[in-house]
C-alpha cells in the first residue's frame, strides 16, 4: 500500500506570504509567542503575491487636516455603496496605525517632505492627498521589511508549497487542516492546524491581459468555495488602463505601467495615432480607471488598434529629461523590454488588476467555517464595487495584522486539533493526481482560450448575450481540461502539473465571475452591463453571493446593510 500523504501539526497555518500573510504571522507570534506558526507559500517567502508589486502607495488618514471619516467616505463612494461598511470602517481606522507600525517597529521608511514629515500624495478618487509611498516601488519596501522580521522570528516556513484543499473535521463542524503539496518533491502532506488563515491573494489571472504575479491563480477562492464558503461581489473585477502589450509570446504582456503617466500629461492614442479620450470624458486621459478602460476597450472594438491589438501611450510631447527623472522605474522597465517610453509610442491595453470580490468574512477575519480566517485579496466586501488605488495594500496589511491578533486571542478557548476527514484528504490527493491518468491534449491552448473568452465576453463590457457565450465556452474548456493530461515522468517541481492545477482554479472562479455578472443586472463600479447601463437605486443595493453545491454554482443576493451611513448622507461636517 502506498502512503498517500504524510501528516504533521502546527498551531497556526498561514496560506500566502504577501502583506496579509506576513503581517498575520508577525502579529500572531507577538500575541501567542508559544504557538507553533507555519507560513506556506507557492514560491519563496517575500517574493510572491502582489503586495510586493505595489507601485502607488498606501492610503492612510495621517494628516491633521484629513480624517478617518473622510477616508471612509471616499472608500464608500468609490465602492458605489456596495461595501460592507464595518469592513471599510475597520480598514480606514486601522490604516494609520499600520503605517506607524511599518515605520516604527518594522523599519519601513516612506517618502518624506523636506522638513522630515511624511509625504502623502494625491491618488485618483480621493478628496485628500493621503497616499503614503516610497517612490513608485512602495511594495518592495513593505515586503522586504516584513520578510526580514519573519525570518528573524524563526517562524516555520513551507516555501515552494502549494495548498491543495481545505480539509474539514470528520464531523464536518470545523476546519481540521490543509492538504499541501511540496512542489520540490511533488509529495503530499496533510498539515493539521488549530487555525488556518487564507491569504493567498485573488488575482484575475484568467483574463488575456492581467497584472498580478504569476503565482496567483485564484487557488484560495477556489478552495474556499469547494469547502462550502460563500464568495461575494465576484462580478467586480477591476481593470487598469495601461498594461504593456507585446504579443501572447511574452510574459511582459499585461504588466502595468503606472497611472502617474496619464496624470502627468501622457496621451493615449489609437492605432491611427490620434487622441480619442476627449470624446469619452471631459477629463480626457485623466478620467478614472474604469472610464478610461471602457473607452480604450471601445476603441479596440472599433478596430482602431496597433500591431499587437492595443492602443498607445506616449510621453514624447513632454520634456524628455523630466519624464526620465520622474518615471525612472517605468522608463527602465520599458527599455529593458525593448520599448521607448520617453520618445516613442508604447503599445498598451487595459489589464485585469484586482478582484474586489472574495470570501465573506467578519471584521475580525473569521469566516463561517470555524478555524478558518481570511484576509487580503481572497476576501470580499471591503472595497464594494471598486477599489481605490492605495486601498489594496492597506487592505492586505490591515486585515493581515487583525487576523494574526484574532487568531492569537482565539487559540486559548477554541484552538483544538480537530480530527481530519481522511477520506476527504484522500479524495483531494486523487483529484490532484488526476491529470497523470490522462493522455493527450494541449494545455497552453486551453489557457489561451480561457484568456480570450474572459477578456471578450466577461470583461470590461458585458451583456446577457456575451455572458451566456462565456458560460458555455468556459464549461467546454473545463471539459477540455479534464481530457488533457500530464506525463507522469517526474513530479518534482513539475510546473506543467501546477499549470494544470492553476487552470482548474482559474476556470472554477471564472465560472463564478460569469454567474455573478449575469445576476447583477445593473452597472456600477467595475461592472458594466451594456444591456443595463444605469445604476439602480443605491438605497436598495444588494450584493451577490456565490456558493458551490454538487458542482453547481448558485448565486443569491443579499441587501447591503447601511449601518453607518446611508446613500445621500455624509459623515463629514463641511
Amino acid at each position, binding site marked *: 500500500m502506498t502512503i498517500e500523504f504524510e501528516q504533521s501539526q502546527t498551531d497556526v497555518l498561514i496560506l500566502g506570504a504577501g502583506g496579509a500573510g506576513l503581517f498575520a504571522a508577525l502579529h500572531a507570534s507577538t500575541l501567542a509567542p508559544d504557538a507553533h506558526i507555519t507560513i506556506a507559500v507557492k514560491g*519563496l517567502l517575500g517574493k510572491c503575491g502582489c503586495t510586493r*508589486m505595489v507601485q502607488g502607495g498606501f492610503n492612510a488618514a495621517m494628516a491633521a487636516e484629513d480624517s478617518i471619516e473622510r477616508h471612509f467616505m471616499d472608500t464608500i463612494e468609490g465602492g458605489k455603496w456596495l461595501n460592507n461598511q464595518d469592513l471599510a470602517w475597520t480598514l480606514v481606522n486601522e490604516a494609520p496605525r499600520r503605517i506607524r507600525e511599518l515605520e*516604527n*517597529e518594522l*523599519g519601513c521608511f516612506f517618502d518624506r517632505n523636506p522638513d522630515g514629515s511624511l509625504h502623502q500624495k494625491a491618488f485618483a478618487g480621493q478628496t485628500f492627498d493621503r497616499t503614503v509611498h516610497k517612490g513608485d516601488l512602495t511594495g518592495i519596501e513593505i515586503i522586504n521589511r516584513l520578510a526580514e522580521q519573519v525570518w*528573524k522570528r524563526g517562524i516555520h516556513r513551507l516555501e515552494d508549497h502549494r495548498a491543495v484543499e481545505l480539509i474539514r473535521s470528520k464531523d464536518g463542524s470545523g476546519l481540521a487542516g490543509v492538504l499541501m503539496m511540496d512542489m520540490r518533491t511533488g509529495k503530499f502532506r496533510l498539515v493539521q492546524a488549530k487555525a488556518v488563515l487564507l491569504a493567498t491573494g485573488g488575482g484575475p489571472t484568467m483574463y488575456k491581459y492581467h497584472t498580478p504575479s504569476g503565482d496567483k491563480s485564484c487557488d484560495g477562492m477556489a478552495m474556499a468555495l469547494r469547502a462550502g464558503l460563500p464568495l461575494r461581489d465576484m462580478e467586480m473585477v477591476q481593470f487598469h488602463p495601461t498594461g504593456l502589450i507585446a504579443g501572447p509570446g*511574452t510574459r511582459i504582456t499585461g504588466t502595468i505601467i503606472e497611472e502617474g503617466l496619464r496624470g502627468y500629461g501622457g496621451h493615449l492614442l489609437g492605432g491611427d495615432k490620434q487622441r480619442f479620450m476627449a470624446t469619452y470624458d471631459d477629463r480626457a486621459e485623466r478620467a478614472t480607471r474604469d472610464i478610461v478602460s471602457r473607452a480604450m476597450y471601445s476603441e479596440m472594438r472599433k478596430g482602431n488598434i496597433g500591431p499587437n491589438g492595443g492602443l498607445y501611450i506616449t510621453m514624447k510631447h513632454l520634456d524628455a529629461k523630466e519624464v526620465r527623472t520622474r518615471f525612472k522605474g517605468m522608463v527602465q522597465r520599458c527599455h529593458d*523590454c525593448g520599448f521607448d517610453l520617453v520618445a516613442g509610442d508604447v503599445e498598451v491595453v487595459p489589464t485585469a488588476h484586482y478582484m474586489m470580490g472574495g470570501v465573506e468574512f467578519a471584521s475580525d477575519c473569521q469566516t463561517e467555517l470555524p478555524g478558518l480566517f481570511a484576509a487580503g485579496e481572497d476576501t470580499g466586501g471591503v472595497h464594494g464595487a471598486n477599489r481605490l488605488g492605495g486601498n489594496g495594500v492597506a487592505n492586505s496589511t490591515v486585515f493581515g495584522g487583525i487576523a494574526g491578533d484574532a487568531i492569537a486571542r482565539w487559540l486559548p478557548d477554541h484552538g483544538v486539533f480537530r480530527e481530519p476527514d481522511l477520506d476527504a484528504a484522500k479524495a483531494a490527493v486523487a483529484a490532484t493526481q488526476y491529470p497523470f491518468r490522462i493522455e493527450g491534449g494541449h494545455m497552453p491552448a486551453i489557457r489561451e482560450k480561457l484568456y480570450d473568452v474572459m477578456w471578450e465576453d466577461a470583461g470590461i463590457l458585458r451583456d446577457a448575450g456575451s455572458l451566456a457565450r462565456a458560460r458555455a465556452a468556459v464549461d467546454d474548456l473545463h471539459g477540455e481540461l479534464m481530457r488533457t493530461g500530464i506525463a507522469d515522468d517526474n513530479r518534482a*517541481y513539475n510546473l*506543467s502539473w501546477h499549470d494544470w492545477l492553476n487552470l482548474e482554479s482559474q476556470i472554477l472562479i471564472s465560472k463564478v465571475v460569469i454567474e455573478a455578472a449575469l445576476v447583477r443586472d445593473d452597472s456600477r463600479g467595475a461592472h458594466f452591463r451594456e444591456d443595463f447601463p444605469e445604476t439602480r437605486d443605491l438605497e436598495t443595493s444588494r450584493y451577490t453571493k456565490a456558493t458551490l453545491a454538487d458542482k453547481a454554482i448558485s448565486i443569491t443576493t443579499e441587501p447591503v446593510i447601511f449601518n453607518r451611513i446611508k446613500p445621500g448622507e455624509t459623515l463629514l461636517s463641511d
Partner: protein
Amino acid sequence: MQTDQISVSIWRGGEDGKYQTYRVPRLESQTVLDVVTYIQRELDPSLSYRFACRVGVCGSCAMTVNGKARWTCRTHVSRVADGGAITLAPLRNLPVVKDLVVDMAVFFDKWEKALGSFVGDQTRDQALAAVSPADPRRREASAGIECIGCGICYATCDVVDWNKDYLGPAAMNRAWTLINDARDVARLPRLQAIAGDNGCLGCHSQQGCVERCPKSLNPTVAIAGLKRESMKAALKGELS
C-alpha cells in the same frame, strides 16, 4: 544578427546533470524568461524554473545566462543571444533543487545573520520620526534600499564561492542601510555581526556585485563603509 530561431542549452537535473539543447522561435519582444516558458509549455513540460512577478520586482527568476547571473524577466533576448545561442544554468553558489531552480534559504539565513532587520525603540502608537530626506546618513541608506533580494550579487561573488560562510554582498548591503538608519538601535550588535573574515573583512573589492546588480546598487561601497565603521568601533573597544 536576428535569426528565426535561437539555440538554447539548459542545465537539466540537480547538482549532477547535463545540458540539453532546444530550438526556440525568435520573437521581436522576447525575454529570457519567455524562452524558458516556451520550452516548458511547448517542447518539454518537465522543465523547472521559478518566477513570480514578471517585471523585475520579486527577484525569483534569476539564472546564469551565458555565464553571467541575470534576472531573466527583464533580460531581452537581443541583448544576450550570442550568435543566436543562449546557455542557461541555475545561479551559482546556491544548492540546485532541479534544473534552473535553486534553494535560496542560505541566502536569506545570511541576511538575518548580518542582523539585516530593523530594531527600533518606538511603537505603532507613537508618531513617525522626522527624518530629512537630505540628511547625509539617510541618503546613504536610501542609496542601497531598493535591493530586491534576487541573489545575483551572491551568485557572482567569488568570495562566496571560496568561503561558504561569507555573508555576501546583499546581506551586508542591507546591514549598511540599517547602520545609516537614524531610527535603528542595534548598531553595535550589527557591527559585531558583520565584523571579521566572514563579514566585511572578507570582501576583496572585486566588484562583481556592482557590475551585475540589476538595480545598479553598489554593495562594495556599502561593505567599505562597514569596514570603516567596524574599525572605528573596534578602536574604541566597542566590539570586544
